[in-house]
């Protein structure tokens, strides 16, 4: 501002009378601007306070309500990444639809994969209520800007992996999603209620596959154990970084987007799952796992966080394959989107004729 005034003084050396005019104008505008900015800050502060009061009183936030920009951005990030996880999650299981061991298993797996597509759609809808553009969020997945659950970057090598995914991966997802049914943002919470209702079948069908294999021939049991060995640790990583390294947790808890910390949910998952493994005669691949009588919970071994960050960072076994598959699906499906639009226009022209 001072620079500007100096410039005016220098350039209009011979127009003394107009200088004072300009100066008064500049100063006046400056005061108005500062004032407006100040008022706006007060306004936003009071809106933020009102907003937090609603959250504290467990009143849900709906799409048209005022919300802080960061709340909106956090939700768009979280919900779209959740949606991407559902959609990318179809790939490792889709891999086994044609090779399911019998017709019953095939029908079940098809229904499950179709559910995952549905879950993705509920969630993309929820991001749209926040003003996000659906195609843009999908393009963010394809460009690598948006993440998805790291678990889907592991390959599905045997049929038993379908059991391990249903039992462990969907089990961990349920553990994460049940508290999200009480999330402060209405559309996300409602989508989660639907998702949770459907996920419980997913977990049961997975556990059924594991139970059958674990009580089958020696080779079948080995196959089940091998799947557990490969999916156990990545399942624990699904809950995200440890509380000490989780940068979003504090604010998300304050906004009631999140209700429990990553470590709390992870512990809950371990405590519930370990007895299930014992029941069907499988061994959790963790030598440090032991029951702690004083805390009434299991102590588990150290998680390989290096592996976690590598996979999140794009260097997991299947990251490239997964994103390539999604990108190809969008490109190859473009003509369907366009054809449907052309057909709709033709149909409406016929109707109005």
């Amino acid at each position, binding site marked *: 501002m001072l620079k500007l005034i100096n410039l005016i003084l220098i350039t209009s050396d011979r127009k003394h009378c107009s200088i004072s005019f300009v100066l008064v104008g500049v100063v006046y505008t400056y005061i108005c601007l500062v004032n407006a900015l100040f008022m706006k800050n007060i306004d936003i502060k009071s809106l933020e306070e009102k907003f937090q009061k609603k959250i504290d009183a467990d009143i849900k936030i709906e799409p048209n309500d005022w919300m802080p920009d960061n709340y909106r951005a956090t939700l768009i990030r979280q919900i779209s990444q959740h949606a991407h996880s559902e959609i990318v999650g179809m790939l490792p299981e889709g891999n086994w639809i044609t090779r399911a061991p019998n017709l019953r298993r095939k029908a079940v797996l098809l229904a499950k994969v179709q559910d995952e597509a549905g879950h993705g759609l509920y969630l993309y809808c929820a991001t749209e209520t926040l003003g996000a553009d659906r195609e843009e969020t999908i393009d963010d997945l394809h460009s690598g800007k948006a993440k998805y659950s790291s678990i889907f970057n592991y390959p599905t090598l045997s049929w038993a992996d379908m059991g391990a995914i249903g039992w462990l991966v969907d089990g961990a997802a349920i553990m994460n999603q049940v508290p999200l049914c009480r999330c402060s943002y209405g559309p996300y919470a409602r989508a989660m209620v639907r998702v949770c209702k459907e996920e419980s079948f997913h977990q049961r069908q997975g556990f059924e596959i594991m139970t059958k294999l674990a009580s089958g021939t020696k080779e079948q049991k080995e196959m089940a154990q091998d799947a557990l060995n490969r999916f156990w640790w990545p399942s624990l990583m699904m809950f995200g970084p440890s509380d000490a390294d989780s940068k979003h947790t504090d604010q998300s808890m304050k906004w009631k987007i999140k209700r429990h910390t990553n470590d709390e949910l992870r512990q809950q998952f371990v405590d519930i799952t370990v007895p299930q493994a014992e029941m069907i005669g499988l061994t959790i691949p963790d030598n440090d796992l032991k029951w702690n009588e004083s805390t009434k919970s299991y102590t588990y071994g150290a998680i390989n966080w290096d592996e976690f960050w590598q996979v999140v960072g794009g260097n997991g076994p299947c990251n490239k394959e997964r994103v390539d598959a999604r990108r190809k699906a969008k490109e190859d499906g473009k003509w369907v989107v*366009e054809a449907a639009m052309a057909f709709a226009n033709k149909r409406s022209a016929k109707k109005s004729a």
Partner: protein
Amino acid sequence: MTQDKKDWPLWEVFIRSKQGLNHKHVGSLRAADSTMAVENARDVYTRRQEGISIWVVPSNLITASDPSDEESLFEPSASKVYRHPTFYDVPDGISHM
């Protein structure tokens, strides 16, 4: 309704869960036209017998009240307790009222 945009428009979906109940809003979806929106809604929102009837409405045709007007819009009804039957005293011994 001819669409110039290449993206499918957004539709709000309402489902009647059984005969005798209202259609209830369940969410939204994208589809090229209303017929396809109904078909998509069938796949997305009724995979487990959640409904027997579907309505779809273009999202941009919905007019909504503004949440910031909430007070002036709904406050007038708060002060009219005499609109509720519990406002009135009924003498003991009177029944069927």
